[in-house]
């Protein structure tokens, strides 16, 4: 494979080298969190964490463990940089990003450290593309202080059923309201749009509901514009966990299985909308 014929000397300059036989195992996951141009990359020996934020109210993280990669070499405890995510995705998909069986794009991602561009070597069918993407100093991601001990309500649903609801959400509604309760309506998504309101109710005994642990009735509203991008993550996932804590903060965690059957996680954190008073 042409990509592995790089000289030893060059390799020694890189603080991070990550290789994949199928570039789409990275690009697909990144698509799930692409709602802003910039992403913060944080690499540790455990793997890669990519973070995208919106106005300090929404944060999405994608986790790709080091064992997903065919090669993952890191020379420091932590390597961080910021890069334009849409540019990165265009590069990862330079050969078209289609999934023709038998055809795959191999990727070698290399980084020399602060001040250097992120270098990608992509190969498909003997054709090699080299991309050098400028990097910036990474911003510090917001800590939403969401911890499992503070969780009041939690459900795990099969993504199938939630996908339908999310794709039909009334976009004229400024908020998405989530009600979780030990009693009726159990789990409800509501919108308040121009022509009226709509409710999507999931009963606790639905066969789509894998776990139902609600301790008290909570209704929280979140800005629709912030949550709508999570639809992409939902589309890729097979299961999703929805949790709220005592402050009304929302955590959505998606289990994504890639084409090779390996598991990655995507999570979204969102603050409740304070502008709106509850009915």
């Amino acid at each position, binding site marked *: 494979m042409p990509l592995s014929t790089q000289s030893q000397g060059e390799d020694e300059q890189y603080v991070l080298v990550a290789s994949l036989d199928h570039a789409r195992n990275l690009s697909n996951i990144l698509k799930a969190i692409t709602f802003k141009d910039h992403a913060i990359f944080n690499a540790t020996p455990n793997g890669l964490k990519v973070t995208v934020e919106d106005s300090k109210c929404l944060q999405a993280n994608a986790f790709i463990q080091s064992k997903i990669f065919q090669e993952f070499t890191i020379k420091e405890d932590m390597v961080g940089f910021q890069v334009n995510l849409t540019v990165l995705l265009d590069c990862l998909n330079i050969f078209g990003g289609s999934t023709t069986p038998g055809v795959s794009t191999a990727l070698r991602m290399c980084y020399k450290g602060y001040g250097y561009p992120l270098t990608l070597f992509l190969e498909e069918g003997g054709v090699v593309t080299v991309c050098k993407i400028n990097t910036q100093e990474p911003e510090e991601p917001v800590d939403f202080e969401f911890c499992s001990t503070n969780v009041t309500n939690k459900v795990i649903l099969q993504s199938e059923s939630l996908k*339908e609801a999310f794709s039909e959400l009334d976009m004229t509604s400024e908020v998405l309201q989530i009600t979780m309760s030990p009693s009726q309506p159990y789990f409800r998504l509501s919108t308040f749009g121009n022509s*009226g309101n709509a409710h999507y109710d999931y009963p606790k*005994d639905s066969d789509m509901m894998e776990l139902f642990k609600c301790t008290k009735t909570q209704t929280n509203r979140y800005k629709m514009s912030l949550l709508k991008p999570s639809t992409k993550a939902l589309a890729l996932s097979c299961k999703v966990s929805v949790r709220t804590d005592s402050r009304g903060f929302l955590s959505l965690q998606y289990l994504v299985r890639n084409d090779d059957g390996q598991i990655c996680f995507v999570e979204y954190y969102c603050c409740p909308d304070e502008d709106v008073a509850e009915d």
Partner: protein
Amino acid sequence: MDCVVTGGNVKVLAKAIHSLSRIGDELYVEPQEDGLALRSVNSSRSAYACFLFAPLFFSRYTIPSGPAFRCKMAIKSVQAVFRSLATLEKTVEKCHIELDEQKNRLTFTLHCKHGLMKTHNLSFQDSESLQAVFDKDSYANVFRSHPRLLVDTVVHFSPSLEEVTVSVSDDQMWVKNHVEDEADRSKAMLTELCLASDEFDNFSVQVHNSVTFCLKELRGLLVFAESTGLPISMYFDEPGRPVVLSVTDSVLEGNFVLATLSDDTDQRKNNTKRARTTPPPAPDDFMNDDMDSYLIAMDTSIMPGPSASRPPSPPLVNSTCLNHTAAANHRTRLHSEEEDEEEETVDSCGPPNKKFCSLFFGSVLPPSSQMTTQPLTGQEVLASDSEDDVQ
């Protein structure tokens, strides 16, 4: 009002609503004793459609007691309830439609698989009744065919095409696109095709006519008919009188009424039982397609002489006559059988040769005339509607 639609009928209802959305922006809902009527009209009142679902279409059908209830709402909101037809088929078990008169809301509840319930509370406005006046039995020309025939015909015309002209003789129907402006005509592509009477299930012509109407609005009906496989019946006669297209089965009836171009000059020619004015396709004689006179004209820089086999048509008053708001002229137009007595359209700059006839609407004001009506004030009260009954 309390109705329940189950199984495959949910999809049929959804399709009818999507079909109506091609006509107008608002859905008029009227639960009647003979069934639930869903109607729509376009802003210039030149296209109207109505679907009537008989009580047997529903697994439960209860209408409000007391005075007749009518309302209207943004059709987009109702479409949102039935957004994905594919999903509907797979997951919706039944659809419950309930009226909440106190809160002025119509509630659509979809009971889906896996226990999921989708509830849409849509607000509505009171409205007057909306019914076009037409009597299918009185039309001179009646046709019926499988929707595929019309779909196959319409495919030859550009999706953005506005108007078509349909002409008939005893055993043939010609369909061609209609181009309004003189200016456009030199650039526009002209398409024409001919259908034989034996391609129809029924082809009954009493008057050889030509009518021009808007194709765009018809496409909504075609999509509905094609997916349900119901034959389409078409009724028309003189230009100016609306063309009616309809689909029927035992539990529903859909009628699309489209205004047609009224052309005084063409009308006189067409109102006789003769061969149509547009000649049939020229015999395949190569010599007929002689370009030389045109070429000579170009070389000597003289304007080309009158060409074309068709007489030049007088310019139209409005290039978008069919969409012209005719509300202002309704007062004198309603129920007028003499089209020549119509008031001139607002933007006329001389006696128009071609006029568009708006549909004639029946407008029955509610018994308590205290109710605020819509911008349709100015419509006069009419005696009765002449819509066909179901079946």
